[in-house]
């Protein structure tokens, strides 16, 4: 039911304001410098966050693989950021990132001799600060998927490698990673589709600021649509996002199909 309503309205929405404006809204979106900035921010954030989260998730899976009870406990605890609502994640990280020298993050990094940073208020750092939070809250999710993949790796391969005298690096590069390739593929696509529509993290952490340096596509849509009441422009931007997501998903499905055929 909700599906039908949504579908029907996506076609109608660009002409809101009860006036036919044709492609004007799209033109506005495509020529607006704020949207341009949002696109590049979304891309940087999306690529960085997806790559980072998948990499961290993989490392986590390697470190926490194993049957023992204490490892199970650590895995459960490490997974907590995923189940925590993103609004809560945002608020706690705002406190961690507190800009003064005695903020939590600055204190911890101070121990290793890094000077205090005003994370969320520095235009050159803010985007990466947001990215870190994104990686933190999504990497454990990918860890679980990787762990399931790791459990399916043939143990005799490790044994053979050990007899051949392969080093740990070789073992991971030539056995573990090829075995996990389907999982890595799926997880990367999942991460990319998620990153396209990132909203809550950015909204709670920075609200798009400072000076638009963390403004992403979704926050831009929200600002346009609900704060400036430019619903037409916001809808046009939504449709563009929709097209991008669909394209990405189609590519994703194409690749996973390919995998199954082989």
């Amino acid at each position, binding site marked *: 039911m909700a599906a039908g309503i*949504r579908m029907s309205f*996506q076609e109608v929405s660009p002409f809101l304001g009860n006036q036919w404006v044709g492609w004007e809204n799209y033109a506005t979106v495509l020529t607006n410098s704020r949207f341009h900035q949002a696109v590049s921010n979304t891309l940087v954030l999306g690529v960085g966050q997806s790559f980072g989260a998948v990499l961290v998730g993989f490392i986590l899976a390697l470190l926490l693989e194993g049957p023992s009870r204490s490892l199970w406990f650590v895995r459960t605890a490490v997974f907590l950021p995923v189940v*925590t609502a993103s609004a809560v994640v945002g608020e706690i990280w705002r406190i961690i990132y507190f800009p003064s020298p005695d903020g939590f993050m600055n204190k911890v990094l101070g121990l290793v001799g890094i000077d205090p940073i005003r994370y969320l208020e520095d235009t050159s750092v803010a985007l990466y600060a947001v990215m870190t939070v994104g990686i933190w809250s999504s990497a454990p999710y990918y860890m679980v998927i990787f762990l399931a993949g790791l459990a399916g790796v043939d143990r005799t391969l490790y044994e053979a490698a050990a007899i051949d005298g392969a080093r740990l690096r070789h073992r991971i590069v030539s056995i573990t990673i090829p075995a996990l390739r389907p999982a890595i593929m799926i997880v990367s696509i999942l991460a990319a589709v998620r990153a396209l529509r990132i909203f809550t993290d950015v909204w709670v952490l920075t609200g798009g600021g400072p000076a638009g340096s963390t403004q992403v596509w979704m926050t831009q849509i929200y600002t346009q649509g609900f704060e400036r009441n430019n619903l037409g422009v916001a809808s046009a931007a939504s449709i563009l996002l929709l097209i991008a997501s669909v394209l990405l998903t189609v590519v994703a499905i194409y690749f996973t199909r390919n995998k199954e055929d082989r």
Partner: protein
Amino acid sequence: MSTPALRKKRRQTSVEGTLDTAFGWAVGDTRSMLVRAVLCAILLFIFAGPILTIIVGAFDLNPDPTALTLWPHNPSLENFRVATGRGIWGYFANSLFIAGFGLTLQIAVAVTAGYALARRKFYGQTVVLGVFLATMMLPEEVVAVPLAVVLGDLPLLGISIRGTVFAIILPVAASAFSILVMAAFMRDIPEEIIEAARIDGASEFRILVQVILPMCLPALGVVAIFGFNGIWDQYLLPLVAANRTEDYTITVILRSLRADVEVGTGALLAGAFLALIPSLIVYLLLQKSLVRGMTSGAIKG
């Protein structure tokens, strides 16, 4: 030339357990275990530490807005008192109501729609499945703007549910993920069982409730935890759907709690604590279902 001595040596070099994990953790080797324990401690600090600071901070009276601590210095319930003054429980109740009602609806829709997809053959089935898949790829974020307009003027009915909790509940009621999970699970139930029930004269509804449903408990667990987390995590939807701030959910209100200079970090942490606890409880109860749902979804794509 495989003398017993050589064999023994080989066994020693590959310490017990190293072949069980990709990373080659040696179970029983003290040094390896020590390294691992230290790494685990660091991981716990990084990933669980911030969550723990919320729990501790909520019960700790600390005027310093920068101080996050893993140990309460001044335990008190003052933070909750201040947060109560800001009506935090009302928002909490909003959230609980939406999550409870929304999840119930979502499960009902998932069970019935899943049953229809899995068991009945009807015209246009692939189309329906395709539409479901399509909406699954389209998250609330993408449709937020059109949705806000729809909620303000429901097609056919011509009424506005914007500003009521139903504006948040209805959109979350149909989750393509839940429906697909149920459908996939029900498809694996042997046809003979349903046939037997039908011969015994059970109605279609009775078959669903008394025969199929008890067999679907694992799938229900998956739907429940994903559904709950999905609804609880909603941010944009309540923000867009509510007309008055009183209708906000607890996740949304955290932001205004932070902007309120009079209440301080403690009350914010108390609010965050309340927003955190339900998801924690659900997670710990349904952890197995969560992992099952994630991995099966990942394998099927």
